[in-house]
């Protein structure tokens, strides 16, 4: 009996976790990344990677949820998050990296890395729009 009760409780907890409301994903701002003590280029690249990883996690969580009004609402919210973060990369991160210095060569590799993260985010955003 005890086992069945525990199993039921465990299943319920899993169900609740998988269907819990999707949290808003907001990544770090350029300002906070610039507070890094060194290697701004690397810090910016890592911030973009972490941002993609977090958004993408929500993307796959949402993909598994059955179609419903709730899901459409969550998709719309995630689209807003993706658009905001892509905008941040385009308007804040890229121009900053171009200005960092190092005779224009300090951030070259990390610039290319962030281009990848921005592209991946854009891919997810396109898929999200089709998911609706």
């Amino acid at each position, binding site marked *: 009996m005890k086992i069945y009760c525990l199993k039921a409780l465990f299943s319920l907890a899993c169900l609740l976790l998988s269907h819990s409301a999707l949290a808003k994903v907001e990544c770090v701002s350029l300002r906070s990344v610039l507070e890094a003590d060194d290697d701004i280029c690397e810090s910016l690249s890592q911030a973009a990677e972490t941002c*993609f990883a977090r958004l993408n996690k929500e993307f796959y969580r949402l993909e598994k949820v059955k179609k419903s009004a709730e899901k459409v609402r969550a998709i719309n919210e995630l689209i807003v998050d993706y658009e905001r973060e892509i905008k941040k990369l385009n308007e804040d991160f890229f121009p900053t990296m171009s200005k960092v210095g190092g005779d224009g060569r300090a951030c070259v590799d990390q610039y290319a890395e962030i281009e990848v993260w921005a592209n991946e985010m854009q891919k997810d955003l396109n898929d999200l729009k089709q998911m609706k």
Partner: protein
Amino acid sequence: MRQTQNQAFFLIATFLLIGLCTTPDSAVAKKCGRGCQRTMDNACTVEARLWAAAEQAIKQGIRVTSCCRSPQYNALLRQCGYFPAKRSAHMSGQAIDLIVSPRNCNSGYLQRIGFPPVCPYYHHGHCHVQTRCGTAASAAQARAKSQKRAQKVRDYNRSGRGGDWNEQGRSRSSRRRNYATPKPWAETFWSEVAR
């Protein structure tokens, strides 16, 4: 009168408590200022040409604040309230930090005082000097590496495992679980369940 005394006592106690909580752990604070080292914890060594230039700079009275950093030390710096990059060029021995004026933080000046070709930039009061200068070829390599990492992130997230992705490809929580010793209470609990 008594109420005022109580309030004053409460205020003093609160300030003391805040002071106690915000004072850095002396052991940690002591370990934070390790300055410039060529090698650290057998984890990294500053490139020979960069190190030679750093020694030359020190002789000329320039302060070199940071050189090689081991992953442990980099992590420790975070505990001390600094924000070093997790994959900093200092960790591969390709960067050092100098105290020079922003005007002198350029490759021309640094080469004049004995540095090899570098890509320096001024940030937070110091000149970050790195030998890792990007080229079209290195950018292509970095792009390819990131694409592979992006695929790993996707695979990890698609699998629905808990925790957030990190560069080791494991979640923080699962990493903790791997190193943690099994708790006796947990063993008792699960053996109870199995019964």
